[in-house]
């Protein structure tokens, strides 16, 4: 059954073509069925392939399918080929399933929009590209999927193109991620130049043979790939595009900017883990970037008023956790968190979308209130996913995955207390900011009456994802609950195990306990500040220092400002100043000189006979002089 793998990206791609060409003329129903149905088909096939893979695993736990030979040029070969192993199986399953739920949700969310078929076309193309990215057997095909998702992200962020603000956000996303992509593509050149291939398994094999650990070329290659990952996954220093990307429709944010595209960087690092393992400085960088980002974004999330922007910063922060896991060598923990995060973050966004549409397109949480009685299913969805995000012990998925990451940060040979503490502070921040949103928007007095409460197409996916947000963590039960790491066992066939060592007296149970305490502290603080006494935070933000910090965190720690001054403004200035191309001035100068010569010489054609006679006489005299003297 594994041969069906090729269909997983193919079906959404053909659906895209169909919708792009004929969409505007099709009935809404047809578009919904084709748009969501194609992803559903993909999800079903992924399920079949996964079941087949796990129940009857192929030799060496890997399966390779080549569709056709893309390029074979003087020693460089790249195919359109798909590689299936535990890592890609997990990714594809999660991606297609979550995507399907989001597409179903979108059939109701986007029903009033005149770009209905265009939306589904773009979303389908996105899923096709993302699946290609994940299944690619070589870096060039992966790069094709990579850029494809970048393109779709641009198209979808700027979906409501009439508003130039959306266009600016879309452009910012595309350009910032492309900066990362440029770094990645240079990495591709380096890898091909030194290893002679871009086929993933082949290149990793050759790297282990040819490059010693810590070799400069390995560090360079891994660092360049990291550049690409950082751009796509919105980590420091390329995280500035994600908050603005919330300008797109909420299902887009759910799919692209929560569950899938932003995790492409995580996937890339996990997929090329051999290269990263050969470059310890880069691994450290990954972990440090992850830790720094999760803190930074957590602080920024605390100050946001727009419900989607809170979730955007939350995404940046959670991906920071995944990077942290990758950086300390806890590969499967990162993928575990990817899975749980896909479920609860998508659910958070879907619920937020339901809230926004129920509140007359209002995004500001401080203008909302009392929603828990008015849209109960949405409230419970948001609450469950919020708890999963914060890590409510035992009954939410996020608890298990985050716990595993933090334990890895503490116990891995590349980890250490500093990283663990950063993660811990992050837990506190997460708990605080998400409960802030819950208490402010869902509790208290209702301010805006509800219109368009969510119906079946929105509610059903939310319910399903809620169940997953609760139960998805149980595939990996930690040591104090029986140590049944089913998911990890599957992943270990593709990714190396993280070595554990005992540091100090903290064991996994203690780690979990401290994390739970942080979670509870955050919950209590949020309760105090936002529910019990609504303007408790006022004195904090009123004084000068508080206000300065608030503004600073609100503006994403000033990154936008710096980038604008350093990069954007000079290029724009130069382009405008040199619009008529200063090089042309040289040629205009040549033309001016020849015109001047023309004017000078034409002065000798005075038309007067005496002048001509005089010049004849003068010339004759000179000539005679020359002949006689020389």
């Amino acid at each position: 059954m594994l041969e069906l793998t090729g269909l997983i990206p193919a079906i959404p791609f053909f659906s895209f073509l169909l919708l792009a060409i004929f969409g505007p003329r099709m009935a809404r129903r047809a578009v919904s069925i084709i748009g969501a149905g194609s992803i559903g088909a993909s999800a079903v096939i992924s399920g079949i392939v996964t079941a087949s893979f796990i129940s009857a695993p192929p030799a060496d736990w890997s399966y390779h399918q080549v569709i056709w030979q893309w390029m074979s040029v003087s020693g460089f070969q790249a195919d359109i080929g798909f590689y299936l192993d535990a890592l890609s199986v997990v990714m594809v399953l999660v991606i297609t399933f979550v995507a399907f739920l989001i597409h179903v949700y979108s059939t109701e969310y986007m029903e009033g929009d005149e770009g209905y078929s265009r939306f589904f076309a773009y979303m389908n193309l996105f899923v096709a590209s993302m699946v290609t990215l994940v299944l690619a057997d070589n870096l060039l095909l992966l790069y094709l999927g990579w850029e494809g998702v970048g393109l779709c992200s641009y198209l979808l962020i700027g979906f409501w193109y009439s508003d130039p603000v959306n266009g600016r956000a879309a452009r910012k996303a595309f350009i910032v991620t492309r900066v990362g992509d440029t770094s990645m593509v240079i990495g591709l050149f380096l890898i091909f130049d030194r290893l002679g291939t871009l086929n993933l398994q082949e290149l990793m094999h050759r790297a282990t043979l040819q490059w010693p650990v810590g070799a400069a070329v390995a560090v360079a290659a891994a660092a360049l790939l990291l550049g690409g990952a950082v751009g796509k996954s919105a980590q420091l220093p390329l995280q500035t595009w994600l908050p603005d990307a919330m300008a797109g429709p909420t299902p887009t944010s759910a799919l692209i900017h929560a569950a899938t595209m932003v995790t492409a960087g995580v996937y890339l690092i996990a997929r090329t883990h051999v290269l990263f393992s050969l470059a310890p400085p880069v691994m450290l960088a990954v972990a440090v970037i992850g830790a720094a980002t999760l803190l930074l974004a957590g602080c920024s999330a605390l100050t946001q008023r727009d419900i989607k922007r809170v979730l955007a910063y939350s995404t940046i922060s959670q991906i920071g956790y995944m990077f942290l896991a990758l950086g300390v060598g806890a590969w499967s923990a990162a993928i575990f968190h990817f899975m749980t995060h896909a479920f609860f973050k998508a659910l958070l966004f879907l619920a937020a979308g339901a809230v926004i549409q129920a509140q007359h397109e209002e995004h500001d949480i401080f203008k909302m209130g009392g929603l828990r009685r008015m849209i109960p299913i949405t409230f419970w969805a948001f609450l469950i996913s919020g708890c999963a995000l914060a890590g409510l012990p035992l009954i939410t998925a996020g608890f298990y995955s985050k716990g595993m990451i933090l334990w890895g940060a503490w116990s891995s040979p590349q980890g250490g207390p500093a990283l663990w503490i950063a993660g811990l502070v992050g837990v506190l921040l997460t708990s605080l900011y998400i409960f802030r949103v819950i208490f402010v928007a869902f509790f208290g007095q209702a301010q805006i009456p509800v219109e368009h409460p969510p119906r079946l197409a929105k509610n059903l996916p939310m319910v399903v994802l809620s169940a997953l947000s609760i139960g998805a963590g149980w595939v990996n039960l930690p040591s104090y609950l029986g140590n049944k790491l089913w998911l990890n066992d599957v992943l270990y066939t593709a990714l190396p195990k993280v070595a554990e060592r005992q540091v100090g007296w903290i064991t996994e149970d203690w780690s979990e306990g401290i994390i739970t305490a942080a979670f509870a502290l955050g919950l209590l603080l949020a309760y105090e500040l936002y529910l019990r006494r609504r303007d408790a935070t006022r004195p904090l933000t009123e004084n000068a220092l508080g206000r300065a910090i608030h503004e600073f965190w609100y503006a994403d720690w000033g990154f936008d400002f710096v980038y604008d001054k350093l990069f954007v403004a000079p290029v724009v200035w130069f382009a405008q100043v040199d619009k008529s191309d200063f090089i042309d001035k040289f040629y205009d100068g040549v033309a001016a000189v020849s015109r001047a010569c023309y004017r000078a010489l034409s002065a000798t054609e005075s038309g007067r006979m005496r002048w001509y006679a005089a010049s004849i006489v003068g010339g004759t005299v000179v000539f005679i002089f020359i002949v006689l003297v020389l």
Partner: protein
Amino acid sequence: MILIWFIGILLAGGIACWIAARWSAPVCRWIALGATIADFVLSLALWVRSYPVNLLQQQEWLRQVNWNWFPDAGIHFHLAIDGLSLLLVVLTFFLGIVSVLASWTEIREGVGFFHLNLLWVLAGITGVFLAVDLFLFYFAWELMLIPMYFLIAIWGHERRVYAAVKFFLFTQLSGLLMLISILALYMIHHSATGVYTFEYSELIGTSMPLHTAIWVMLGFFIAFAVKLPMVPFHTWLPDAHTEASTAGSVILAGLLLKTGAYGLLRFVVPLFPAAAHWFSPIATVLAAIGIIYGAVLAFGQTDLKRLVAYTSVSHLGFVLLAIFVWNKLALEGALITIIAHGISTGALFVLVGGLQERIHTREMDRMGGLWHTIPRLSGAAMFFAMASIGLPGLGDFVGEFLILLGTYKVSVGLAVAAAIGVLASTLYGLKFIQRAFHGSNVHHWELHDLFAREVVIIAPMIVILLWLGLFPRPVLNTFVPAMQKLQEQAARQYQAYERGQP
């Protein structure tokens, strides 16, 4: 003989058009269309028949025509075609069909003379790609010039005379330098072997001291560099492209620029490999500068057509880079880029020209929100803009990636600079879409979406770009034997030169 047909149909068709237009303009257009389609079909037939790879590899030339012209001076009427020229000739006729169709409603006065010039410029271009006798090559080079001048000067836009004269002066002067070089080569060959000949295959291998070779090469190089165009000789291009009519721009961008690339591939490096090797640091650095400078300048334009024009400077910088890097990967990438750029930029000009016909302006400030009223044209424009910025899956990416891969082997710095150029291209691509098609329809345009005629032009171009992007093998297979021949010739010459060194 088929080579004579290629050129002859165009020449005869042009004259027939001119005469027919006295009675009926539509008849003239149909004759022009018929001539270009006939030539295109013939060239495709030749391609299909010659495709088996071993056939391509066995012979140096797939077809030849060699007649005496002025035998005492060593001038022959020698046309020859190999994999490289075959692909370019197919591209020529395809874009010829596109330009005839694109000017169907745009050109209203002087229809006959317009099509005469159009077909004769195509004939000149075909001649350039097919000529193997240097005198004939120069003849065809100049033949391209005059009809193009008329095409810009008579049917162009506001500053057409300025643009046409500028184009003419730049190309003519650089062509004169090439003539001097050709004659110099002729004389040197005579003094070395006692034979007067302009024949390409005999002139290869003419040995001369390095400093002489450098000067002679520079004469050729400047002619092709102006055509390509290379910074700093590129300034004729924005004006010529902007002021020409749609067909003129398509031919300029899609074909004329490629003649420069062709000349570098066919003549400059094989004839003077040592000089080219000496010159390559300068040429490659200028190419990299051109890539970035062209992209940044494109970003700064407010005239939509001028923006597209500057993108040509940027893209052909890649080709120049590849040629002077001269390794297999880069050269194959260069060929793909040549074809893909011809198609994608040609399509962009067709779309911008169609837009100009509808709203009578090229200023982006007067546009905005056009997607509301002409979604299909906007969608097509988005597709080709994405191709232009190197989206994988489309032809331009394959070419640029291969070029960069090849360049990296020679110089990391150049590859990084060129990659930054690709990043810069994102700026102009997005600006192009944003200003014209996205945003709100502040000027309240209500326009007619794509006509059937435009769909007939655009749809095949989309398919070709996708085909080049995902399945470039047939094209590459056709090119590789020709490329290998060129590389062997250059290598042999270079080794001879090295042996001659003390």
